[in-house]
């Protein structure tokens, strides 16, 4: 039996793309052709979806001269629910999980930290990701480029070998201590894997 993702079962492809982009960066006003470029389609093919999403109150739009801009209606009663659905299925976490998966055991732990993990990001916030293991930036860069295109924002990785990570923790490295205390969103492994790595 052919398997469909949750989103494919719920929404047609173009609507998925529009919602993933707008709900993923809810403060950003998207210019029509910018949104079309992100989705790899023509502006005209987005018109109908955008009109119905605006009419239903899921998106808002404004005009500047001849240009039309769209963004998520964050006051909508279903905004947070929809955003959570997309975060779980097509958001940052799932996309990063997907691009890091091929590295298998080369990555012992990976997580998003900083403003995005604390849900304090603004539209243009970079995504900070810590990767611990044997996968270096050279291994990760091609996969990260793909993730950046899909997410529409920069992904900055800090890579540690397991040995360096442990040593830095032991020596009380301020940066790592602050990162470990703050909120994290795991994309490989979980808190128990990280605790094990640290030797707790």
């Amino acid at each position, binding site marked *: 039996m052919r398997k469909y993702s949750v989103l494919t079962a719920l929404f047609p492809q173009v609507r998925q793309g529009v919602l993933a982009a707008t709900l993923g960066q809810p403060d950003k006003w998207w210019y029509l052709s910018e949104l079309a470029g992100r989705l790899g389609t023509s502006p005209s093919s987005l018109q109908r979806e955008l009109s119905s999403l605006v009419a239903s109150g899921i998106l808002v739009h404004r005009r500047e001269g001849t240009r039309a801009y769209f963004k998520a209606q964050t006051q909508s009663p279903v905004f947070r629910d929809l955003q959570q659905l997309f975060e779980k299925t097509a958001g940052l976490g799932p996309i990063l999980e997907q691009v890091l998966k091929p590295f298998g055991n080369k990555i012992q732990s990976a997580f998003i930290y900083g403003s995005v993990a604390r849900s304090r990001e603004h539209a243009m916030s970079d995504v900070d990701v810590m990767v611990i293991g044997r996968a270096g*930036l050279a291994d990760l860069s*091609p996969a990260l480029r793909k993730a950046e295109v899909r997410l529409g924002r920069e992904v900055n990785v800090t890579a540690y*070998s397991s040995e360096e990570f442990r040593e830095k923790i032991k020596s009380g490295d301020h940066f790592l201590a602050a990162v470990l205390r703050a909120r994290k969103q795991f994309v490989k492994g979980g808190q128990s894997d990280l605790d094990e790595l640290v030797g707790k």
Partner: protein
Amino acid sequence: MRALIARDLADASLAGLSADRRFATAYNAALQAANMAIACAGYRIVSKVGHHRVSLESTKLVLGKPAQKYADYFETCRRKRNTIDYTFSNVATDTEAKEILAQARQFYVEVEDWITKNHPALKM
């Protein structure tokens, strides 16, 4: 340019330097190796905003497909190096500083091989 690259590769190996400084110095060696290949192909990247990015992108045109992985990697490093030089300290890890030095050395070897093959009059 060869002397400059040799200097930066040597300096980026100095254990007494911070990981940030080793990282940024090895990055500079890689950037100059990219510029050397571009110069051998008869071009020069004008020093304007974004010229590092243009140099790294152009290596794909000059060296062809084998340069793709380096271009992607050094583009990631370019952003980290900008943060190191202009915004924060303690940005690069030791793991990253060692890796970029190894990658810059390898990239430089590939550039010299390409010059030997394609521009023998300019070979070392």
